[in-house]
């Protein structure tokens, strides 16, 4: 059953049990959908829960984390839908999906590769885990993949160890590892944050190229509005464990409705967008997750806050079919959480 969406996340909650049974609600009711073959940008400040959301999809959370509520429906092409939230995080089913149908690349390529194995070993490890293939064939495919990702002299370098590669090259290796099994969904968790600015652009270009070549869907997680503007089809803006605004790129960038999105767009320079405007930082700091305001989480920092904002948590409002906002000031169809 091929639906329009490859991934549907409904009211996902991920919580960490920290010392003395205190609970940190890192992801607190997140709902969004990823369109098949499209790129979704998930943006927000650090600590807002975007990375935890991604790890929840892959079920790569630490042992202290629990998912008490919500569903993560994955609809693979030519396969049965699965609710990833219900799977055993170390079980056979999730393992057959990881690296095979859904891949993930991480923030820091320097730390994400095992220093004691050469990169060839590490790439073919995924391939051989998910398909019956000889070592030789696997290596050939790995070389082809590295060439596709423009790593020079790939057939020689495949025997090199991670420490012999630069940061950008390591991230290419990580991408190769992620794509070698032709996954249907790629989750890139801040893939450029740890890299030099010049390399960042190359990696972004590369992900875009690969996406149009293989046609997989992508979730790109970033705090960089510029990257989202550059590559995303859809945008989800996250604040304190909730998606505060979701829509197409046009919806969010041209008609930002949530005060947080507006503030976020005003606070960072985006190439070719509102070039002359002065940059205005968002005032205040993100609240401590253990002392969340009772109402809207953004209320203490919001310029438009009213009494209503202080008391009740705003629900999801569908302004248009594609544009959903969590703000009491927005008028539209009330949606379920």
């Amino acid at each position, binding site marked *: 059953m091929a639906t329009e969406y490859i991934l549907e996340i409904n009211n996902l909650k991920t919580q960490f049990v920290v010392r003395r049974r205190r609970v940190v609600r890192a992801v607190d009711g997140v709902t969004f959908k990823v369109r098949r073959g499209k790129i979704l940008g998930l943006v927000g400040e650090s600590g807002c829960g975007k990375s935890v959301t991604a790890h929840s999809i*892959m079920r*790569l959370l630490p042992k202290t984390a629990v998912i008490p509520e919500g569903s993560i429906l994955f609809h693979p092409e030519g396969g049965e839908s699965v609710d990833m939230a219900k799977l055993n995080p*170390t079980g056979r089913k*999730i*393992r*057959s*999906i*990881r*690296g*095979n149908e859904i*891949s*993930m690349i*991480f*923030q*820091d390529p320097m*730390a*994400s*590769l*095992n*220093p*004691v194995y*050469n990169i060839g070993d590490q790439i073919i*490890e*995924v391939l051989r*885990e*998910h398909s019956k293939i000889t070592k030789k064939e696997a290596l050939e495919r790995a070389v082809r993949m590295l060439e596709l990702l423009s790593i020079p002299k790939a057939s020689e370098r495949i025997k090199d*160890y991670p*420490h012999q590669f630069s940061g950008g090259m390591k991230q290419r290796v*990580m991408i190769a*590892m992620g794509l070698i099994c032709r996954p249907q969904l790629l989750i890139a968790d801040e893939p450029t944050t740890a890299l030099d600015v010049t390399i960042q652009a190359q990696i972004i270009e590369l992900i875009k190229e690969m996406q149009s070549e293989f046609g997989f869907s992508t979730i790109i997680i970033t705090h960089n509005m510029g990257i989202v503007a550059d590559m995303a089809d859809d945008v989800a803006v996250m604040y304190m464990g909730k998606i505060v605004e979701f829509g197409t790129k046009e919806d969010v960038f041209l008609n930002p409705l949530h005060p947080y999105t507006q503030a976020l767009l005003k606070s960072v320079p985006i190439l070719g967008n509102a070039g002359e405007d002065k940059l205005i930082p968002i005032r205040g700091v993100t609240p401590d997750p253990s002392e969340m305001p009772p109402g809207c989480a953004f209320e203490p920092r919001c310029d438009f806050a009213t009494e209503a904002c202080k008391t009740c948590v705003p629900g999801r409002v569908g302004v248009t079919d594609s544009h959903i906002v969590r703000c009491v000031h927005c008028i539209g169809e009330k949606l379920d959480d």
Partner: protein
Amino acid sequence: MLKYFFKRLLVMIPMMLAISLLVFGALELTPGDPLTAQFPPDQLVGMSQEDLDALREAVGLNDPMLVRYFRWLIAFFTGDMGYSIQTGTPISQVISYLLPQTVILAAAALLISTIFGLIFGIIAATKHNTIWDYLASVIGVIGISMPEFFIGIVAILIFAINLGWLPAQGRGSADATFIQNLRYLILPASSLGLSLAAALTRYTRNSMMDVMNQDYVKTARAKGLSESRVFFKHVFRNALMPISVLIFLRLPMLIGGSVVIEQVFGYAGIGNRLLTAINSSDYQLVLTIILMLSFVALLASLLIDLVTALLDPRVRL
């Protein structure tokens, strides 16, 4: 890899020279006639003072120190190590007979402590924050806090005297096979290895916990690998590197400790002989044994070093 091996070997040579120079210097400072250390006693008996002086000149004892040092060093490496003043036996014979026993003891202790240290460390790391983890770390601290000879004495009292399972003293009979004499090795090797095992338990646990939090372990899980594969291929392998460094650092202590343990168990090894030689001021023998043991320590550390290099490609280059 071979290149790395030779590089390490080259680094060792000046160290060996430095140690030998130290030992030679000590030998120079000790009282006693160097002649008695170079010839069997019966050869010197009855010689007149002139004869002795002539002999001294003939073997070059009046040469400059540096010349004598190199002559002594060459003689050492060709197996001509002189004679024990106390017993008159050639030192090379003493060493070739007793050194292997001590090496066996130290190696057995190393083996035992590595096996137990790794097993307990892994248990503590995988069951981390449970009673097992807590127990392993407390027992670990207790283990490194006990003097090894005290452990040896307690072991004798419990396992040899009260339970009668294992022999308390000695090294077995000379005509029994190695396997038959293995019983004699168990208590001394375990007592010697206990503190290293305790240290290794703690270290393995911490090293494993450290590696488990690394991003590349997350990458391995993201690949869809099974937990056991993630554990052995990615966590354990990487955790081993710092562990081998710890073993490297503790190795000299193990060799020094064997001298003490040999005393406790009346184990006929080179350490025991070393102590009797010190007590009878047989300095030539003392210093030769010390030199020999430090070479053994150096060689052993070279070996561990190579293991580390095998484990970690970053070291190799």
